[in-house]
């Protein structure tokens, strides 16, 4: 594993696109959280937020940060898609195998990014939560309700698993990014809405919707009474989606011609 991580580091060390994308993926959720906190802490909106239970004070801050950050997961996904499809574009997926990686190790290399980016998202939202909570909240630091950040972490894992799956199946950055956003921004929502209308709460079990159900938008979510499963059902669903995506990625990589 050390060899894999070192090799992946050599690949990105001086890759400008990687660093620019990474910077964006860090700055945008940071800016979005500060923007929202700032927006709802001034003037008339401040009064409204007090009715909603102080969303930028501990412990409610964790749900707010998780919910706001979840809209920016696509940035990490683009990064993973670029890192994966680059290998196909440059045909270095072949070269890595020829040089002496097992095909399995090639998949591990991409899984390393999946995990590393997810952990980065987790760490980032934790830090943002603490900073925003201290700056805009009225209470002292507390990790009560931190579980929302863990739900967000799981949702990022699902999002990145989907991104990796699409990248491995389509092999081209452009088309993979288009399909990824078509799914995450439209198809998942539409299917979920249709399923919900037909079959009720089962519609909330679609890959991205499952995470969304656990992260209701704090400012409005609580006003809408909605029939939902217990949290563990969504957690199991997300773990199942991650496992399924991994299974398909491994199967594809182990059996196909490169």
């Amino acid at each position, binding site marked *: 594993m050390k060899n894999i991580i070192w*090799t992946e580091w*050599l690949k990105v060390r*001086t890759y*400008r696109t990687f660093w620019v994308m990474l910077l964006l993926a860090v700055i945008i959720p940071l800016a979005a959280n500060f923007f929202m906190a700032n927006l709802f802490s001034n003037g008339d909106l401040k009064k409204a937020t007090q009715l909603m239970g102080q969303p930028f004070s501990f412990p409610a801050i964790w749900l707010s940060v998780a919910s706001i950050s979840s809209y920016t997961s696509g940035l990490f996904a683009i990064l993973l898609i670029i890192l994966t499809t*680059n290998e196909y574009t440059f045909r*270095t997926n*072949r*070269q890595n195998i020829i040089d002496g*990686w097992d095909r399995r190790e090639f998949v591990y290399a991409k899984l390393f990014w999946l995990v590393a980016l997810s952990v980065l998202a987790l760490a980032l939202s934790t830090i943002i939560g603490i900073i925003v909570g201290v700056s805009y909240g009225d209470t002292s630091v507390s990790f009560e309700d931190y579980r929302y950040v863990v739900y967000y972490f799981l949702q990022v894992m699902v999002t990145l698993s989907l991104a990796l799956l699409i990248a491995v199946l389509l092999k081209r950055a452009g088309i993979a990014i288009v399909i990824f956003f078509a799914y995450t921004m439209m198809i998942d929502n539409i299917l979920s809405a249709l399923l919900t209308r037909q079959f009720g709460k089962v519609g909330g079990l679609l890959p991205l919707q499952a995470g969304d159900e656990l992260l209701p938008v704090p400012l409005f979510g609580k006003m809408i009474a909605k029939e939902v499963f217990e949290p563990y059902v969504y957690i199991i669903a997300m773990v199942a989606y991650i496992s399924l995506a991994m299974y398909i990625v491994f199967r594809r990589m182990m059996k196909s*011609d490169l």
Partner: protein
Amino acid sequence: MSILSLQGISKRYGAVQALSGVSFDVPPGSVFGILGPNGSGKTTLLGIVTDVLKADSGTFQLFGKAGTATQRRSIGTLLETPNFYHYLSGWKNLEISASIKRRGADDIERVLKVCGLYARKDAAFKTYSLGMKQRLALAAVLLGDPDVLILDEPTNGLDPSGIAEVRGIIHNLAQSGKTIILASHLLDEVEKVCTHVAILQRGQLLLSGAVTEVIQRNDFVELSASDNSALAALMLRYPGCNSAVISGSSVIATFDSYPDTAAINGWCANNGIWLSQLQLRKKSLEKAFLELTHTSNS
């Protein structure tokens, strides 16, 4: 123990049977040429050996063991095209190859110098010319001084001096006892260096073995005199001569066994024909190859 041993390798791409039941062995220390026209399955075969392609059936062993990543690390391979990260320099690309091969970066300087790329080591791969990309691929092959090399069309994209350099490199490697598996459609490339050969045509193995054994390359004699038609007639009466035809300004005579030029000279002189030219020639591999593939076509 064979370096590489193939048993009944078959591979199909849709309607095209790229390889059908190919089996042969590469002995250690040999320079093993895999010959065949474009599309005969050479690259497919080497792709299977390096695990970038999956065979439909058949097995192979590297160093007597089922081929795995561990064995690949001790083989330098150039397959088809140079595959490198476009945005990285030649040096940094080789750092990645070295890392995957579990070797230190200490050999990079040497291989870049051998391949004449040291001056451009810090330029991005995408700025390289076709020939330079090929040189970098060769540098990657030489990294860590492996005992076995797999080279698929190694002189692709190189200029004449580059081709001569690569031949020189291959020659030196062969001299130092390394095993080289060389796929090419350029026959003179193979002719100059190979000790063993396998000939493929449309996925079928036509033959394989030591060059001297498997390719009938009857030596022939090229000779001329003032009266070539009289010379041709005389040569046909020479014991062991099976043909004598006039070709341009000389007569080409072929023999059942290795021709003795001194005896031929004496025979002609005794029969009153004084030779102005007498030269022992070898049938080129190209000609032998064309005959071979032509026979199997018809």
